[in-house]
């Protein structure tokens, strides 16, 4: 465990980058969402009609704003940090363990930011003008647990995906990385087809589990990416 703390410190060397940027991204999402609602409201009048408020509940900014950045953090960790960690005498296993701990911290920070955002959103009556940013359908309509866990697993899945593909690239080069990506795409399509064929069963699960079904699926994907990145990092070279 002590040996994993060194790569963790390496991951956290630039704290603003790995812990602060997700907060900044969500702050921008809040500002942009308020601006959009303000523009709509200035044309339709305040308070917003129920139809428009319902529309803002479909805001997926929190879902789609951070993944690109998080994937890039995963890629950089798996390539640049990996090279420096090995140069400084870390093993592949301790690098993976430390970096995965770092991913958990980034995800925790991202989920906490979203949860605090939800609290502020409620406190301010949806940012004073009826704008929904965190209290949205996709994250359980204001269910704090769904939002926190959902954002956490989404973040760690993105970080792990970046780490997996970054490591595959380092271990196997461009061509085989593309082939691995294509193979994973085929598997994903197969699973989606399986779900479509068994739609009644899936809908029954959806009724029983609600948003937790999606959260569980993303958690399973994150676990698969982490396991894949561990397998890949054991063969990665510099």
């Amino acid at each position, binding site marked *: 465990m002590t040996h994993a703390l060194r790569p963790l410190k390496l991951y956290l*060397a*630039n704290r603003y*980058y790995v812990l602060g940027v997700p907060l900044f991204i969500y702050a921008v999402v809040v500002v942009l969402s308020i601006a959009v609602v303000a523009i709509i409201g200035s044309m339709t009048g305040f308070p917003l009609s129920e139809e428009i408020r319902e529309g803002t509940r479909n805001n997926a900014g929190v879902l789609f704003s951070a993944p690109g950045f998080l994937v890039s953090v995963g890629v*950089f960790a798996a390539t*640049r940090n990996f090279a420096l960690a090995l*140069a*400084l*005498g*870390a093993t592949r296993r301790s690098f993976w363990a430390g970096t995965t701990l770092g991913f958990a911290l980034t995800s925790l920070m991202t989920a906490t930011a979203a949860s605090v955002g939800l609290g502020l959103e409620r406190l301010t009556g949806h940012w004073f003008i009826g704008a929904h940013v965190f209290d949205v359908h996709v994250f359980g309509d204001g269910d704090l647990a769904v939002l926190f866990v959902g954002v956490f697993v989404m973040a760690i899945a993105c970080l792990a995906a970046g780490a997996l593909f970054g490591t595959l690239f380092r271990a196997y080069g461009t061509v085989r990385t593309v082939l691995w990506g294509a193979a994973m795409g085929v598997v994903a399509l197969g699973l989606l087809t399986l779900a479509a064929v068994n739609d009644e069963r899936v809908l029954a699960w959806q009724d029983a589990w609600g948003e937790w079904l999606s959260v569980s699926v993303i958690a399973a994907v994150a676990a698969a990416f982490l396991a894949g990145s561990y397998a890949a990092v054991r063969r990665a*070279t510099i």
Partner: protein
Amino acid sequence: MTAGISVIGLTKTYGDHTVLDDLHLTFAAGKIHGLLGANGTGKTTLMSLMSRHTFPTRGSVLLDDREFGEDPRQAQRLCFVRENQLYNDAFKVRDVLRIAPDFYPKWDAATTTRLVDRFRLPPATVVKKLSRGQRSALAIVLALGSRADFTFLDEPYLGLDPGARETFYEELIRSYGAQPRTIIMSTHLVDEAAPLLEEVVVLNQGRVALQAPLEEAEALALTLSGPTTSLDRWLQEHPDHPSLTRRTLGPTATVTTLGPLSDAESASASQAQLRVTSTSLQGLVAALGNSNHEVA
């Protein structure tokens, strides 16, 4: 003192290209070793394999007679900052210098501070914006600061001006004197670095062309010059002294060969009107690189 690094039957191939071919070597502990040879002879690959940055096609590497695999206690005895080391794009010099001590229990803070000052490394600058020489200086700071039992230096002087190179040599000796350890340094500035070295390994086309203590290696390098016909006859009569490289100018020729010469051989060379002069280690490395001769 520990046993050092043993390289046993090490082979590395990339597709059809064999970079290292069945290498058997020992880098004795507590010495400064020079890893010499032309570009593309496998020096960096050998260092990568010894530090497990990459994996061998065949063969193994032992640290103090043990395979170290994924043992973190063994791994932290190694430091190999490459000449083209990758750093996180967001890292500043001070970030790297803040993290590195956590990796090494014997980190030498005083040397680090002094080296940063002597190399004038700017702590607030992003590493990727450093000049070639500054990146080399940072690698030297990490390597010497680590006090790792096995420290690899891969052409550490790249981009350094003569003054900075002098600083490096001086600090290397100072650090090594304070704590003797195994240092393996690849270099093309052979004669400049030679006073630092205790053992030399010369690689040629992925094989060991020579492994010897510095004094022995330096005694090996000789040039013979004189009338071409006399020289050729002498070489024919003395097959233990092969012609590694040859330059012909009109009726005279000069060859680099392997010494030392016995008294009788020196006398016969003199009788043949040949001039025998010692050549530098750099000359020997170049000569071995231009031939397929293996002394080891």
